[in-house]
């Protein structure tokens, strides 16, 4: 059996591991055009703040990779020919000769090509000094600019925009942050939570601009200013943007695969074309619990999807069961856990989906919200009929793991539901006590 995997991210690596766990003989080829191969993309945030050197982002997997016995072809795939079970690619070496194309045949193919930053298209967006945070080279560019830059303007929303803000602050750059609406991340956070984050950003010295839409980046050789819709002009030498990501769909579309916002796959991570699978940021995965197909841009779902795809490519029948999407991140230095369904609607600062994001977080059904806490110890619970549907936890993280489990396992909360809904109820304590009892009963 010949397996070909396009993409060197976590979904691709997980697929290789899964295939090798059940097929010792098959020939596995991994094709990737990322100059850095496999590394922790979420870790870039900690590289920007100076908590990690960049070389630390690469897991030491040399031994593990040797044991997996796969071929690695550096280059990019130009075309997939599904009927011939073959693809065409330009290898890194042959790309110097523009006509050199290598043909690779496959029995099973996985597309784990990921996503890229949604481009900023306003005039001046091509000027040196305009940056995004897609991969390691972008992070290095941001740090290089921060060494001589004094003032930055950050455009966009979600986690990535704040990762850039925090990185620039840590390097001593003055930061302006533009928000199109009246608050930060309005379709995941509630008003109070947005306020908490904005307040902390201001305390860190960030200048927030509400109802601010960038229309033009000005400068001759480099960025010198950004012009807003209302006519204001902010002087700056760096413009960083994080306005969402888009799955890389070109290969899939040209090969005739069914796509929506991502490549559509069934619960076995199969596309509509025989022997072609998709996983990770590029896949729009079917969720049997809701009957809908959604995009996640998160490390763990990518790994789980890659694993399921790999096993199924090797002839198993393993369903990908979508977990309650979960992320722990720092928003303005405040550790925040987001689990399950917590918001709804769209955020003007992001086109589609951002990094470290899940569409599920925004599918808030009719449910009751309970809140408690002030400023840095904040908990919001989304209470369904029998189980918790979602939670946001800011500051104190003691309940992060218990809530993850309660939401994922749909733990029956009937005994405490009324208590949780009482006005001003100490919901953290109620959940903690209930969890301790529940765990004692279910682990003995």
């Amino acid at each position, binding site marked *: 059996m010949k397996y070909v995997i396009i993409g060197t991210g976590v979904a691709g690596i997980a697929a290789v591991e899964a295939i090798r766990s059940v097929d010792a003989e098959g020939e596995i080829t991994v094709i990737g055009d990322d100059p850095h191969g496999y590394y922790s993309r979420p*870790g870039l945030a900690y590289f920007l703040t100076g908590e*990690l050197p960049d070389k630390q982002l690469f897991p*030491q997997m040399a031994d593990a990779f040797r044991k997996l016995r796969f071929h690695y072809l550096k280059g990019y795939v130009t075309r997939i020919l599904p009927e011939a079970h073959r693809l065409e690619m330009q290898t890194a070496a042959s790309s110097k000769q523009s006509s050199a194309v290598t043909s690779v045949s496959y029995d099973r193919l996985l597309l784990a090509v990921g996503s890229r930053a949604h481009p900023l298209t306003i005039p001046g967006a091509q000027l040196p000094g305009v940056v995004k945070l897609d991969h390691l080279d972008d992070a290095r560019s941001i740090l290089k600019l921060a060494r001589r830059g004094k003032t930055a303007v950050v455009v966009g929303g979600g986690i990535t925009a704040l990762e850039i803000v925090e990185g620039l602050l840590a390097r001593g750059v003055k930061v302006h942050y533009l928000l199109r609406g009246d608050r930060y991340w309005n379709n995941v956070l509630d008003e109070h939570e947005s306020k908490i984050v904005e307040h902390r950003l201001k305390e860190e010295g960030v200048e927030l601009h509400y109802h601010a839409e960038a229309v033009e980046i000005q400068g001759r050789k480099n960025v010198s200013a950004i012009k807003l819709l209302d006519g204001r002009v902010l002087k700056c030498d760096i413009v960083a943007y994080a306005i969402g990501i888009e799955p890389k769909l070109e290969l899939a579309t040209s090969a005739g695969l069914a796509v929506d916002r991502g490549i559509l796959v069934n619960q076995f991570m199969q596309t509509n074309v025989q022997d072609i699978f998709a996983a990770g940021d590029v896949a729009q995965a079917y969720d049997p619990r809701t009957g809908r197909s959604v995009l996640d841009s998160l490390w*763990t779902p990518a790994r789980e999807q890659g694993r399921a795809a790999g096993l199924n490519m090797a002839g198993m029948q393993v369903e990908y069961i979508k977990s309650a999407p*979960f992320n722990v991140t720092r928003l303005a230095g405040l*550790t925040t856990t987001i689990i399950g369904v917590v918001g709804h609607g769209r955020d003007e600062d992001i086109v589609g989906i951002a990094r470290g994001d899940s569409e599920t977080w925004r599918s808030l059904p009719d449910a009751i919200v309970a809140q408690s806490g002030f400023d840095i110890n904040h908990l919001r619970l989304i209470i369904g009929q029998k189980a918790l549907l979602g939670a946001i936890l800011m500051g104190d*993280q003691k309940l*992060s*793991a218990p809530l*993850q489990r309660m939401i994922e396992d749909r733990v029956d909360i009937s005994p405490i539901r009324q208590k949780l809904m009482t006005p001003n109820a100490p919901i953290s304590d109620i959940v903690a006590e209930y969890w301790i009892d529940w765990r004692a009963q279910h682990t003995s």
Partner: protein
Amino acid sequence: MAFKDIFGKSSTRREVLASGHVVPDPARCVQCGICSYNCPIEIDVRAHVWRGEAITHSDCLTCGECVARCPRGVLHFEHTDLFVRRPQ
């Protein structure tokens, strides 16, 4: 910050030094490597987490540096039954 706050209700550091080890929740991990980077004796904690294994490395001091530094709460202390005298 008190150790009690870091370790929550699972175990205190002193107890763990005598009879426990560091255990991961791989679903929370993004393989950033802050744990391995901060390990004073250079155990590759991240690799253990990838494999879903407890940090049973014989050199592990259970110093708690990786537990405290992980920005995503992946690691916590747990008792090892091996050294704990069970009540009769």
